[in-house]
């Protein structure tokens, strides 16, 4: 399968591809990518200082996440995330502090605001995919104009739910886009140990699901692929699988130690393919951005992250009552007694 590439690592455009995004859209995307990078840095230091729990950085995958999300209309479309898609969720209406408070340990503060069409993170890999298919299928049955984009990784694609979901999405022609971020690693397990298939995109064919293979560090190629897939979903043509070939430049999460397994030569090669500098090179070549403007973006992002961290620092643990509040729509007699015992120390 041919890999689609538009924006070369040096910032030039390959072949006769037209511009996928306008200059303004590109600048906006760059700001989101730089914000993601800044949040990653800050979240790691917060975790190291004991101010936050485990965090999984997006670093290296900014074009893949931001580029794909640009195809979505947050007022009608849904995101069913895995856990490494922060900039897409921010664009869809989540706040930085809302997202981080989940990883700080407060699900109440992290509650997805009403109206924001995002499902909460869940940790059993690939288990979110059938939800995405059902959601998309249900929207279609009700004549809702929305499509669903769901994320998965190279590792998660080995789970049975990935295969069952592609199969069902194909059968139901559900308006869903599977965005498979092949970032080279499932914690320490390399991509080569996940599958003997040449590409993950090739798996779509067996399920009757059209697939696209794309350079995941290429903002334009990812955006174009996602637009095509979302367009297909919304015109009733069904699901698409996109393999976005990218690379996790950081650790799996704050608890991981990639020095034990990552080949430094391979990492250096991928650092040359960093998705952010090539967007800057592209804009510079068109005199669309100056160093001072980049500094301005960084300063805005820094201020936004500082604001969010200030709020995050005021967020303590959820109230003890929330332990009992949302298990079911009504509280059973038994749970009410357990709650009273634990909260009030009252005897039954």
């Amino acid at each position, binding site marked *: 399968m041919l890999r689609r590439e538009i924006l070369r690592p040096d910032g030039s455009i390959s072949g006769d591809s037209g511009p996928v995004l306008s200059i303004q859209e590109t600048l906006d995307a760059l700001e989101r990518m730089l914000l993601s990078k800044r949040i990653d840095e800050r979240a790691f230091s917060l975790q190291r200082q004991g101010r936050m729990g485990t965090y999984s950085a997006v670093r290296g995958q900014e074009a893949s996440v931001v580029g794909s999300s640009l195809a979505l209309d947050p007022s009608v479309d849904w995101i069913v995330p895995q856990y490494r898609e922060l900039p897409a969720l921010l664009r869809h209406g989540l706040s930085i502090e809302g997202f981080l408070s989940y990883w700080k340990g407060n*699900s*109440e503060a*992290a*509650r*997805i605001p*009403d109206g924001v069409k995002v*499902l*909460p993170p*869940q940790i*059993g890999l690939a*288990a979110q*995919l*059938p*939800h*995405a*298919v*059902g*959601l*998309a*299928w*249900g*929207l279609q*049955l*009700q004549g*809702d104009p929305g499509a669903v984009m769901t994320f998965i990784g190279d590792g998660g694609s080995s789970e*049975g*739910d990935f295969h*069952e*979901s592609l*199969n*069902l999405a194909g*059968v139901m022609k559900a308006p869903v886009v599977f965005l498979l971020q092949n970032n080279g690693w499932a914690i320490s397990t390399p991509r080569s140990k996940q599958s003997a298939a040449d590409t993950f995109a090739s798996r779509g064919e067996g399920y009757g699901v059209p697939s696209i293979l794309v350079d995941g560090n290429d903002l334009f190629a990812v955006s174009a692929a996602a637009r095509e897939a979302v367009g297909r979903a919304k015109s009733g043509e069904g699901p698409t699988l996109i393999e976005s070939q990218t690379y996790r430049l950081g650790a799996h999460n704050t608890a991981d130690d990639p020095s034990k397994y990552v080949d430094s030569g391979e990492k250096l090669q991928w650092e040359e393919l960093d998705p952010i500098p090539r967007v800057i090179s592209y804009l510079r070549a068109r005199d669309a951005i100056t160093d001072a403007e980049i500094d301005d973006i960084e300063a805005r992002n820094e201020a936004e992250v500082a604001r969010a961290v200030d709020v995050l620092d005021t967020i303590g643990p959820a109230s003890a009552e*929330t332990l009992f*509040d*949302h*298990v*079911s*729509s*009504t509280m*059973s*007699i*038994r749970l009410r007694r357990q709650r009273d015992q634990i909260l009030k120390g009252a005897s039954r």
Partner: protein
Amino acid sequence: MTTMTMIEAIRSTIRQEILRDEKVMVLGQDIGKLGGVFRATEGLQAEFGEDRIVDMPLAEASIVGSAVGLSLSGLNPIAEIQFLGFAQQAYHQIVPQLARFRFRSQGRYSTGVTIRAPFGGGVRAPELHSDAIESQFTSVPGLQVVLPSTPADAKGLLTTAIRSEDPVLFCEPLKGYRLVKGDVPDDDYSIPFGELRIAREGTDVTLFAWSAAVQLAEKAAESLASEGISAQVVDLRTLVPLDVDGIREVVSATGRAVVIHEAPLTSGYGAEVVSTIQEEAFYSLEAPVARVAAPDVPYPNIGIEEVFIPNVDRVVSAVREVVSAE
């Protein structure tokens, strides 16, 4: 009232709910033209179309997992798992996904999916088809576990399940699908969860059961009556939520109890019932509480399933012991 079999009561309830609420739909294997392997949806696809009564690919996890998504989209899905034993192939979608969505999202989302699944032995079915694995689902916060034993209860409890915002595992006694008949209210009829039913009055001992074991307890009670023992039969109907207060009341009256279930003894739901009895009614007890269950072995091949399933003789001898204890 109309006299119906269990399967007729279930079918008419599904139809009634589809007619009541345009959001209700059914998904499962072979439920369309065939009407399900037990005919629970017979005729419904012809009446309501392929978008409401949906034949699904043979993959239990995607039946439950997509029902979660359909529910999130605003629909009200009933997912049929052909046999409860196969729900284990959807376990990772039922337990950590369906049952936790409300809690995980702190109330932003609810997933009021009803999973219907027949179970229980004595019908000479192949491996896994008969397994009584209800207790694998009763320790799952957020999931309601409902097991009717009569057609009227099937209607009342299924109506409640479908209308509930919460996920419900609705286990149907497959041996009773056609054998068990009874009067079913014609009008809208729902039964709240967490209320046991006294299936037979009695004063000497209380027999606790659910699903097909209720009829077994009733047969045993009949036999015990001929030897002068008055056994009360209590159908718990919903294991989650459990009628804790109701259990206290009935045991306080008789002072003796036997719990009967088709699942193997160890960690069967009987253990929970016995614990509840001793917590709630210890000082009313005049004898240790007994359990009659299957042995701790896998469900066997059909040639010896009669040895595995609790029978009238085993219940009667357990009751005799409990009643004669000083």
